[in-house]
């Protein structure tokens, strides 16, 4: 049966469409092709209106990637607009390749987080590696030298047959790329949960450093200016399902069209150096990396932002393979490529730099005044699309959503074992064991500016050549987000803020990576909306604006969605590098002080989940005013040099946090408190642990009282063991052995 063409299909509603095709495609677009490009009938109708005629296949491909969820944010845009994005120190918020904040002394920090979930599930090493490569490009494209990487990883249950292989590949891939490029990976997260069995999450963040008055943007300008392509050649990589629409389908197709890209960190390193060298000259009008949807997305975004047109000469695009079609060239996601608009007459100067670094350089087009995005092959026009509508007519959906049901209150909890036993089980389990096995595979000391390496609250890197530092953290507690999206969204933000505060830094701004299931399901959309609202409120209350981010939807396999996972990455500034705190206990005989109120909230805690197998109850309440008050108090103690030892309390509660401090400093602790699991393992928010010389404890306690901050002494440091309420001590070496053993043992058979 001959397929109905889209033209027939739509003839009734668009009788006025011009007949025939002006462009090279002989074939009419079929409904099957429309569907294979992930476009709905309505979206296709809009395309017909925008074009005023039927598109050819290349044009259809261009529309499909530009209007994909990934590039158009069609399900999330409406809600993203509600996020706070401004503050006096924000130089550039969402909308560019990355966010930019002023960090003083003429410097700016440029940062963003991005997901590479799907590719990492298919090919963990290359998926993760190219994820790191992509986010690095987003940052150096704006003129920054990348100075730190972070990675937030979520895997399925440890028991799942695939998990070990995925952990091994992803970690090797993150390291393989970042280590080679020479950017330290200074922190991140690793979670395990069965909800990620079929959809792991690989979120990578990069922070870069630039001169505040030398930021590069992506808006093309200057009619007639040359458009230049640099980096690696274009191959047939990553032309996703969309290629299925192509007609030349044969036995070799599988072989020719890998859906996973292979990263080349060596070329990326050269590209960073070459771009930064070019940026030091006065030649660049606009610059943009080629990420998702490659040449298409970068060209269209540059043209749209500049309100201009762009003419591309497809023949000039450096190609790795013979016989690539315009469709393939335009949709390829080959890595390590950039697009640059140069000032006229500077081509030779720019080319010399890329030659020196042995990278491809080609003038592939020019800026035009037509407002159209046009491609030519052998002089013949192969696509011709008006830029504005391609961007502005992109679909936007206010998808239906339902609010998540409030969780039932947590019933009674009977402690299954003694507190010290529980502590050992938790520290030696999948959720809370040491992640050293992961971060020792990452070069975290290259660049020689790492002040606090992974393993603490926030990482600290020195701002090169100065006595100031940046604190960086990523966080999210998906089980809270699942139980109560609104609270969970806010909690992710406050935990980042708290981690930055706990080292003494002043929190400045955040980036997000919003990972959710299928937004066409109202309950998933409800999770999304709830989390966004929580994030927005927290950011507002803490003056912690969102300056960049990324949305990853459809993380779902066979109707099984991931836990809602709005990963948050934040940065803060240390005005005096020396005045920072670390979690490791430093002295014997220090007073050990708990800041913040302890209610003993066990709902959705690790204690409940791991030891009792219960995912129940509400998430711990987040009181933004209290967070701010307690955090500001702690920070002032650190920045005035009164304390140097501090740790925030999060997953696992007070006793876990205390044990981490003792293990890190190799100094024991004697603790006194209520004999109740809620006290030791509850996950109440807005809390910190401090250690300071006994002689100064009274002053700090009274200062806390003046500030209205709950504070109490709960122990004293010293010895080589951890002791609780006069119980049997556990030696730190035994604790450390358990804490360090889980992950290496688990990974042994990888």
């Amino acid at each position: 049966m001959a397929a109905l063409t889209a033209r027939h299909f739509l003839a009734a509603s668009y009788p006025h469409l011009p007949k025939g095709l002006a462009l090279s495609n002989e074939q009419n677009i079929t409904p099957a092709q429309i569907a294979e490009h992930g476009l709905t009938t309505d979206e296709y109708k809009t395309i017909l209106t925008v074009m005023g005629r039927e598109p050819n296949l290349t044009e259809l491909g261009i529309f499909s990637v530009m209007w994909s969820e990934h590039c158009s944010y069609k399900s999330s845009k409406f809600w993203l607009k509600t996020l706070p994005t401004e503050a006096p120190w924000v130089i550039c918020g969402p909308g560019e390749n990355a966010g930019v904040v002023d960090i003083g002394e003429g410097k700016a920090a440029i940062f963003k987080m991005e997901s590479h979930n799907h590719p990492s599930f298919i090919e963990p090493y290359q998926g993760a590696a190219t994820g790191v490569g992509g986010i690095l490009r987003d940052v150096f494209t704006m003129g920054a030298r990348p100075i730190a990487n972070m990675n937030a990883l979520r895997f399925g249950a440890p028991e799942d047959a695939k998990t070990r292989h995925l952990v091994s590949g992803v970690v090797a891939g993150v390291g393989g790329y970042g280590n080679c490029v020479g950017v330290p990976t200074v922190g991140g997260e690793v979670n395990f949960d069965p909800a990620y069995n079929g959809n792991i999450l690989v979120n990578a963040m990069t922070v870069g450093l630039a001169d505040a008055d030398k930021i590069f943007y992506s808006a093309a300008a200057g009619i007639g200016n040359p458009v230049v392509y640099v980096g690696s050649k274009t191959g047939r990589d990553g032309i996703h399902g969309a290629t299925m629409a192509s007609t030349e389908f044969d036995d070799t197709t599988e072989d020719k069209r890998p859906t996973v890209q292979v990263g080349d960190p060596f070329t990326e390193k050269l590209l960073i150096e070459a771009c930064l060298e070019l940026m030091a000259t006065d030649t660049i009008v606009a610059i943009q990396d080629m990420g998702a949807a490659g040449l298409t997305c970068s060209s269209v975004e540059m043209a749209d932002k500049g309100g201009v047109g762009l003419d591309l000469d497809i023949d000039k695009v450096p190609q790795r393979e013979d016989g690539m079609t315009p469709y393939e060239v335009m949709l390829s996601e080959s890595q390590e490529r950039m697009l640059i608009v140069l000032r006229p007459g500077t081509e030779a100067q720019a080319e010399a730099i890329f030659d020196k670094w042995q990278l491809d350089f080609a003038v592939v087009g020019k800026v035009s005044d037509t407002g159209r995005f046009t491609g030519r092959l052998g002089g013949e026009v192969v696509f011709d699309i008006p830029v504005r509508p391609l961007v502005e007519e992109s679909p936007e959906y206010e998808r239906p959503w339902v609010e998540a049901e409030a969780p039932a209150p947590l019933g009674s909890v009977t402690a299954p074992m003694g507190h010290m036993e529980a502590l050992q089980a938790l520290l030696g389990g999948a959720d809370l064991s040491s992640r050293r096995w992961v971060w020792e595979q990452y070069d975290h000391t290259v660049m020689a500016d790492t002040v606090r390496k992974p393993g603490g609250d926030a990482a600290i890197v020195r701002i090169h050549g100065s006595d100031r530092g940046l604190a960086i953290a990523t966080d999210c507690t998906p089980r809270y987000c699942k139980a109560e999206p609104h609270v969970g969204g806010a909690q992710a933000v406050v935990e980042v803020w708290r981690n930055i505060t706990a080292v003494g830094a002043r929190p400045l701004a955040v980036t997000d990576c919003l990972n959710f299931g299928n937004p066409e399901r109202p309950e998933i959309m409800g999770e999304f909306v709830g989390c966004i609202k929580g994030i927005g409120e927290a950011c507002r209350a803490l003056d912690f604006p969102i300056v960049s981010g990324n949305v990853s939807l459809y993380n779902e396999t066979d109707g099984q969605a991931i836990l809602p996972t709005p990963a948050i990455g934040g940065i803060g500034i240390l005005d005096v590098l020396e005045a920072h705190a670390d979690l490791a206990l430093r002295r014997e005989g220090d007073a050990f002080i708990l800041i913040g109120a302890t209610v003993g909230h066990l709902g959705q805690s690790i204690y409940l989940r791991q030891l009792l197998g219960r995912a129940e109850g509400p998430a711990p309440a987040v009181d933004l005013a209290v967070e701010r008050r307690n955090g500001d108090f702690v920070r002032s103690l650190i920045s005035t040099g009164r304390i140097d030892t501090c740790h925030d309390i999060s997953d696992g509660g007070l006793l876990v946090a205390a044990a981490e401090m003792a293990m890190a400093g190799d100094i024991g602790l004697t603790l006194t408190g209520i004999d109740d699991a809620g006290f030791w393992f509850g996950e109440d928010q807005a809390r910190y642990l401090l250690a300071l010389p006994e002689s100064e404890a009274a002053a700090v306690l009274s200062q806390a009282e003046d500030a209205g901050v709950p504070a109490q002494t709960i122990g004293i440091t010293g010895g080589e063991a951890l002791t609780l309420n006069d119980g049997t001590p556990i030696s730190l070496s035994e604790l450390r052995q358990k804490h360090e053993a889980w992950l290496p043992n688990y990974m042994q058979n990888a």
Partner: protein
Amino acid sequence: MKASVIVFPGSNCDRDVQVALAAAIGGRTDNNDCVDMVWHGDSEMAKTDLIVLPGGFSYGDYLRSGAMSARSPIMREVVARAEQGVAVLGICNGFQVLTEAGLLPGALLPNAGLKFVCRDVQVRVENSQTPFTNAYEAGQTLRIPVAHHDGQYFVEADELSAMQERDQIAFRYCQDEKTGDSSRRANPNGSVDDIAGVFNKRKTVLGLMPHPERAADAIHGGTDGQALLSSLVSALA
């Protein structure tokens, strides 16, 4: 004193070592007059007292670590200067390049654990009678970070004993006395004879896997690597 740092495509510790050298030679991290950055494609080099091959992933560590850099135009000049007795220091990838270029014996293979390893290690100074190590005591232990994937030093057995006789072993990995953490192997990569660094016969060329420039400033949490650079300054200035 003048030092020259060779920049290969993919070097990524060139700036780090430049900063540490500037501090050691000129007393200020931003005093770059005493450190020349030399491009791998150049075939000539100004007069210099010390040549440093920095860490990194030159040519992505593709094929073999250091293999492609060892064939760079500048390496002919480095070999010539080394023959004249100019001091040459190779750190991590630089060590790999020096073995590939034949300036040091042996080869560096992928770590026995097949994983990249980044952590502090403890190394023992085996020979303090050299321009690189005169500020240390023999037997002194240092805490310095390593960060490499291909750090397993290999050399044939007879060559190894000849090297031992000639005092060519510069540093050996040893157990960390402080934390006494016996669960961790002192030797992070399976190097033969626990070797972390070696000299040429004349002790004018040193290659080592640990990164002294990452233990050269108080913010690094230790400064045990700094003395390697100050040894050179006192020997060569």
